């Protein structure tokens, strides 16, 4: 058996893959958080709940409406996004003028309410969601077996991350968005509907979380609490990356996922906390984060 640092290659590659999968979700979620924070200056604590909402929407679409995975992958993010837009319009938008901490507290309450509701109706246990027939099975890569669905998760999240990055950096809408981040009053004076832009941004961020939720449904089980523990790790990812750059959020997400996976191989006891330890070290050495600008 081939060994690297005294670890069988298969175990190493297996954990690397798990790390890459986790990293895919970290990247998608921290990307959404960064997009929302960039424009709204709100840390969206409900992001984990919206991720859970995406997974549950896919599950309900399947069990109630008989709608398959591929359509759910399209529909669920839209549904989550629309719900988020309603929340933004009716409630969250009233808080922009206040201290940013109120946005955090409001979305925290929202997350508790959503998760509590789902727990009440669906119980705390996880429900399985089968991957689509086209993506079941595994391919032999020579050094390891790669379950096809897991490969798909990594590719899909990478594609979406790149697409969002292109949307923000290369399109006209993205240019408005970036301009409004810099100076919303001036952009409004040029005739751009900034409140609408804010609503769309929040819906986009929440939609990304919903998309991640659908992707996650076949990998993890669908449960009301699937988002609440994840969101804290994603916060740490965001602190490490620095909220300033979209690309930074994506890169940090994948990187920390892989680091976490490797920790599981070399020192399993620390795998739960390694991201928090890295966060502490980064804060001591470079408080603004790896990709952040000093405020």
């Amino acid at each position, binding site marked *: 058996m081939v060994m690297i640092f005294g670890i069988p290659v298969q175990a190493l590659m297996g954990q690397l893959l798990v790390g890459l999968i986790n990293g895919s979700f970290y990247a998608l979620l921290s990307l959404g958080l960064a997009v929302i924070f960039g424009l709204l200056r709100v840390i969206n604590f409900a992001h984990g709940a919206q991720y859970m909402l995406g997974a549950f929407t896919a599950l309900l679409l399947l069990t109630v409406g008989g709608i398959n995975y591929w359509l759910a992958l399209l529909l669920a993010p839209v549904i989550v996004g629309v719900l988020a837009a309603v929340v933004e319009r009716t409630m969250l938008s009233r808080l922009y003028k206040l201290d940013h901490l109120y946005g955090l507290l409001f979305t925290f309450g929202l997350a508790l309410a959503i998760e509590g509701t789902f727990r009440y109706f669906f119980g705390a246990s996880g429900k399985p969601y089968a991957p689509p027939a086209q993506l079941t099975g595994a391919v032999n890569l020579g050094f390891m077996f790669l379950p096809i669905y897991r490969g798909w998760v990594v590719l899909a999240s990478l594609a979406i991350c790149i697409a969002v990055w292109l949307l923000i950096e290369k399109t006209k809408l993205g240019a408005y968005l970036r301009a409004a981040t810099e100076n919303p009053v001036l952009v409004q004076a040029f005739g751009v509907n900034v409140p609408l832009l804010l609503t769309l941004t929040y819906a986009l961020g929440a939609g990304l979380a919903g998309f991640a939720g659908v992707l996650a449904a076949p990998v993890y089980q669908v449960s009301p609490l699937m988002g609440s523990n994840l969101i804290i790790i994603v916060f740490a990812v965001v*602190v490490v990356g620095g909220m300033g750059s979209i690309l930074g959020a994506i890169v940090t997400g994948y990187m920390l996922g892989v680091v976490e996976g490797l920790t599981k191989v070399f020192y399993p006891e620390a795998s739960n906390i390694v991201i928090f330890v890295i966060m502490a070290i980064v804060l001591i050495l470079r408080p603004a984060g790896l990709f952040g600008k000093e405020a």
Partner: protein
Amino acid sequence: MSAKSETVAPDHVAAHPRAGQVRLALVAVALAGLLAAPMFLYPIFLMKLLAFALFASAFNLLLGYTGLLSFGHAAFFGGAAYFTAHAVKVWGWPPEAGILLGVAGAAALGLVIGAIAIRRQGIYFAMITLALSQMFFFFCLQAPFTHGEDGIQSVPRGHLFGLIDLSQTLNMYYFVLAVFVIGLLVIRRFVNSPFGMILKSIRENEQRAISLGYSVQRYKLGAFVMSAALAGLAGGVKALIFQFATLTDVTWQMSGEVILMTLLGGIGTLLGPIVGAGLVVSLQNFLATSDFPVTIITGVVFMICVLLFRRGLVGEFFASKIGKRLGFRAES
């Protein structure tokens, strides 16, 4: 955070000349009520209420008077509960020494977490404290002395100073009440000290405080450690009240709960966190028998508080006409 965003209208209503005496009388009535309460209400419930009121007051020291939102105060509360429970049960320490160890442990933890977290401000500060306290949660999950999911159970209450038998419920109640009153007096003294004044100036305008030559980071860290230590006092006492220490007390949900208590009662008032804790604990008690999850109500109350009355119940009362006549002021 409250004062910056809420512009309070200038006081049109002057305080009544004898308002001071009325306020003193109100405090006396409240104290007498607490002394007599165990005859009417279940003592364990009252003790839980007092412990959480102290916890929320300790938290408010940081949020209300320094403007720092910590999302990780469960680490100090639950951590101290573990330290006290371990010292009393495994090492056979007397209760007062066990609680002191809990306070010291929470302060040490506060020093480490605080030193890292104050490197960023505002929203980042909240996220960092949350992440670090989650790290402490995983530590408690794995460390052998906490006994993981089981927690430390059947912790003996022991004899206070070797004399007073705390296993008697009434003795325990009056001990908890004494700790609560002492804790509040410490907070009051701290807030009104020159140190507390500087904290308020940091809350109001950090840049200005820096330009006046105050070493802001050291003051923030001092406030953080003080708040952590008092949260630890509440946690240590709680471990003796319920005679166990479990993972529940170190979860992020607990950190959220203490924020809710403070927000609901009124950020930046001495009375607010106590009222908030009373309401939240009573609500949990009320819902404990039904299968309706408390989190839904907690979440909705959070949203309502943030949207509609950010000053909290006590803050709104202080700002009302009666409150002003009585000479109450928020942030005093």
